[in-house]
């Protein structure tokens, strides 16, 4: 497919698992584990999809999402929030800040893959 995805996640084993699944599906996968400069990494990579955790060192995923949406270049990149925070208010907050999709951990590999595919279809 040739699409690229940027995983912003601080859990190395989750990065590895998702990277494996996506790579096998033909995606180019990059990862970043710090919230502080994550929005900058998005601008540098300009991926087709961003997978974003909420609980990150440096800045929260919500703050990163706001920054992504605040830049003209990255404002329309599809963002899938993947987080352990499953409360309705967190989901609403993410949607309010412009997340395209919201998934909670623990997640199913196939569901993650299908959702990421759907974001570029």
């Amino acid at each position, binding site marked *: 497919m040739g699409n690229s995805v940027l995983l912003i996640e601080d859990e190395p084993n989750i990065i590895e698992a998702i990277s*494996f699944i996506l790579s096998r599906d033909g995606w180019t996968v990059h990862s970043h584990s710090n919230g502080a400069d994550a929005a900058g990494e998005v601008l540098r990579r300009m991926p087709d999809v961003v997978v974003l955790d909420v609980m990150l060192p440096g800045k929260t995923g919500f703050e990163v999402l706001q920054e992504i949406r605040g830049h003209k270049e990255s404002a329309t990149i599809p963002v899938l929030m993947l987080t352990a925070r499953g409360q309705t208010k967190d989901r609403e907050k993410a949607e309010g800040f412009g997340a395209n999709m919201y998934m909670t951990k623990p997640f199913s590999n196939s569901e993650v893959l299908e959702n990421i595919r759907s974001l570029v279809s």
Partner: protein
Amino acid sequence: MARVSLIGTRIRERRISKEIRQTDLAKLVGISPAYLNLIEHNRRRIGGKLLLDIAEKLEVEPALLTVGAEAALLSSLHQASADFTSAPVEEDRIEEFAGRFPGWAQLIVQQNTEIANLKDGVEALNDRLSHDPFLATALHEVISTVSSIQSSATILVESEDIEKEWRDRFHRNIFEDSSRLAQTSESLVGYLDPAEDEGVSQASPIDDLDQHLSENGFWMTEIASNTQSETSRDTTYMHKVIGADRFVYDAFMTKHEGIVRKIPNEILTAAEDQTDDPGEMALLCGVSIPEIFHRLAFRPKQSGVTSYGYLSADMAGAFLSKRSIEGFSLPRIGGGCALWPMFDALAQPTVPVVEDIKQSGRGSDTMRAYAISEPVGENSFSRKPRYITHMLLKPVDSGATEPKMVGVNCRICPIEKCPARRETSILSNGF
């Protein structure tokens, strides 16, 4: 006076039925037998802490001494009705009900008390789960680790053609994650269910110190002269606490020893004999109001000596020192109630504030809250001072004026439409 006379008589009846000698009861509550005799013969008024102490020693609810069994039952039935407004009852027939069915009435009261206790337990647990940073971090770690294990395991199960290198890597990841999960789980269990003999709890250092001092009846220092200092410290406790706990203990004791040296016991007692106003006591002792607050709050629990509660906080609302007191709940985690006078005092530094307050909910007593804030640290035209606010709490009988209703913190506060509310209360949706 009719009510007063009944109190004395009820105390006497209860004491005799418990087969306690007047001399013994007097000794237990720290008054002279002659004074107790005057009380029992309705020649002295009684209330406040002494009444609570006597009720405790006689193993009876204070209300039964003050208003009698029947009135206490009726009051409790009214309370039960007020607690469950969704089930309207015939309020005007409560007396008839209690009279005709005293057993059922008692059952309702007991059930209502039990429900209230359960609510308190739920509130405490909810407060902990909602505000405890350790729990939040640990639970997030558990979910993340479980996600990683599940994802890696799914790959191993579903990818038949997986390369050996990848397979080994996911096996290793699962092993690492499961080890981490075991550690986190163990740590969580230890946190939620600490062993009774565990020396250091997971409470904040300020709470640990408050608990330690309280368990020891605040018998830590009664320094008689300027020559003593280190001897006042509890070496057993010092050996037990480390890190932040030790830092808080050392800082507290250094301050405490300095204040005790400035206000020796005889000077404090002499000031208390002249006035019950802490501000006046400070003037008589030649010390600041926060110093007299500290001195009054942190002294050994003894019969006949008023027990005070005390709190100090910085401008961010973080507690710096606590002395808990029965009848006024202090939050274990998070800030307190913004309606407390100590926070009003921050708006007018160095101006004393006094107000009678009472926390909403059961088991709370009316407290006279004396509060003042003061600048600390170096102060100059180029450096803004920091302010510390202090509040001394003294149990008082409910007077003619209604005390201001305050909370513990928003999460477990039932006051509706509070202008200071920061977040919704778990009580607002009922139990």
